């Protein structure tokens, strides 16, 4: 079995995280009032808010793991030599853009 590529995992994770955030696709939600988890496609009828952060990280991992298993580490490093940093920078900028609504007026 090939060794998973750390670089491919990180890059795919960043892409998967932004995609899950933008498309509202966390794997699951957490309901802090009840202390319960529920799949995103079968939400729990809570009296309080739901939290997507844990599910977003899980979605990103779910997307990144197969990519890391398939992509050869050396090839990723060779193809993206000194460009690897652009992916997390783009991911952070995308997140900031998606969050702009919080700074445009009252909550």
């Amino acid at each position: 079995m090939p060794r998973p590529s750390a670089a491919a995992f990180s890059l795919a994770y960043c892409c998967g995280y932004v995609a899950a955030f933008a498309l509202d696709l966390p794997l699951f939600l957490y309901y802090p009032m009840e202390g319960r988890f529920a799949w995103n496609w079968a939400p729990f009828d809570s009296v309080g808010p739901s939290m997507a952060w844990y599910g977003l990280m899980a979605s990103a991992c779910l997307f990144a793991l197969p990519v890391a298993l398939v992509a050869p580490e050396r090839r990723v490093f060779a193809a993206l030599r000194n460009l690897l940093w652009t992916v997390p920078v783009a991911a952070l900028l995308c997140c900031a853009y998606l969050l702009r609504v919080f700074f445009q007026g009252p909550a």
Partner: protein
Amino acid sequence: MTMTVLLILHGLAGVALLGAVTHQSVGLFRRHRATVDSFTERYRAVQPRGFSTTIVVLVLVSIALGAIIYPTYRVDVRIPFEEMSLGWAIGLFEMKEHAGGIALGLLPLYAVLWRGEFTDTHRLDRTVVTLILALIVWWDFIVGHVLNNIRGFG
């Protein structure tokens, strides 16, 4: 009470992480034949490679503690923020949360860039990824501090 203790531990882990990642980042820009007479030169004259494992562990500890106390924030802090129409404060926390989530996924790449066979061929990647991590740590620390000043767990 338990959440307050965990919040303090989260803050202390953040302080340790801030020190380690800042020291490593500054060490990236040290001169090869620097004199070590001044404080700043002594501060820069470290082997940045030695910090990477510590930084990975501290990021994991910080995020784990943050994940444990997050539900308390969501109920006891964010809802009052919404009632006070502090949308900007909620936005700052959202940016902290997502930056932390991306930092978690960045750790494998960061570790390989510091410890693997690509350290010499990917210097720019290593430098920028380390600086991104440092930026996230500073951002998360300052935002956490500001929000706790507005309304802590009580």
